[in-house]
């Protein structure tokens, strides 16, 4: 598969994976008292601030042969690239979801509960729809971050052409090998794709 297609695939799968973790965690954190919520938010934002190579290195230790999760044999597989995209996008989606849940007028949810809706129904039918625009924005950012992922991917997924070599990695390799035309084409395609994503995002925001 072409690097650009792989980038898209890994970013989409990574965003889905990260949503599965980020949404329930943000829902849980939004109900915590302020000091604990701030601590959780800081901790879960770390992958945004720590250099991607450092995150990748930690994962390498974790998933390596001697690591505690070495038995999963994830290193240098497409799954590792998905994991890299998921981890890179996680803080963005988590923070957007937390902010969206916090901004929900509490009275709308508690009035729905008093009218008979159990907590699950209040979340699924009231709080999630109210947070939808914030969640969409967060997911789009996570997706964009996943497409641009480089550091973590390099460390744990490598650059196996057609298998784990994403666009950002392929640009680096093409440039390093002096294949300027290849690099030009990839950069142009990535620019186009990212521009389209951002446009979609702002259209979504304006639509609300």
């Amino acid at each position, binding site marked *: 598969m072409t690097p650009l297609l792989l980038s898209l695939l890994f970013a989409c799968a990574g965003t889905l994976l990260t949503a599965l973790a980020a949404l329930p965690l943000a829902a849980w954190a939004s109900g915590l008292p302020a000091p604990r919520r701030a601590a959780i938010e800081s901790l879960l934002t770390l992958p945004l601030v720590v250099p991607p190579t450092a995150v990748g290195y930690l994962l390498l230790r974790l998933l390596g042969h001697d690591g505690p999760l070495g038995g999963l044999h994830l290193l240098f597989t497409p799954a590792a690239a998905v994991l890299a995209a998921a981890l890179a996008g996680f803080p963005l989606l988590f923070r957007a979801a937390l902010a969206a849940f916090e901004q929900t*007028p509490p009275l709308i949810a508690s009035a729905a509960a008093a009218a008979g809706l159990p907590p699950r129904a209040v979340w699924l039918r009231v709080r999630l729809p109210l947070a939808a625009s914030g969640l969409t924005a967060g997911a789009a950012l996570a997706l964009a971050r996943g497409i641009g992922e480089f550091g973590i991917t390099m460390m744990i997924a490598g650059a196996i052409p057609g298998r784990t070599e994403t666009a950002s990695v392929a640009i680096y390799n093409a440039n390093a090998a002096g294949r300027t035309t290849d690099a030009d084409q990839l950069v142009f395609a990535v620019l186009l794709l990212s521009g389209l994503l951002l446009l979609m995002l702002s259209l979504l925001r304006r639509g609300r």
Partner: protein
Amino acid sequence: MLQFDLTLKAAAGHSALRATATIGQGTALLTGPSGAGKSTLLALLAGAITPQSGTLRWRDQHWSDGPRLLVPSHLRGLGWQPQSASLQPGWTARDHLDATYRFRPRRLDLETRAIDRLDLGPLMARRAGQLSAGEAQRVALLRALTACQGLLLLDEPVTALPPELARRAVELIASLTDEQGWTAIVVSHQPLEGLLPETRLEIADGLLRTA
């Protein structure tokens, strides 16, 4: 019979409150200056806010004991109309009722009568986000009435309504409360025309008194 002795410390969004009362069947009018804690008391009874200490009993159930909620809000069979916007903007009035009917029995006669008296027939299919303040207030009241299984909590239920509609709404509240054997606590700044409360409660400086 509703019995409570609740203490709430001041926090973001509400002031401190100490409330002790026993309220029987029928309507109770709750008055007091702005910011005295009227809405906070209703939110406490609704289970939307957790008290620090004290007990709350409804009929033969213990609803809360100290900070522990023994019966969560959705199982209290409440009809609660909060004072400010409490409707899901994307839902129609119909959606609000249907959401409740998935968990509570539908009383078609009561519903039809309430829709008629509150003049909501033409508004049932409109999204809550598109309603005026007075319309939203009527929909919130309708939801409270159709959801209620015993304890009705109404927070300034008719302030945004024109006098004639307000009078009809109060009449509806009073007659349903009477017929269904509900206990209704109605918050209001002034006495409501057509409502002869069995109990009068007053909150001042965070303390509830039976007037």
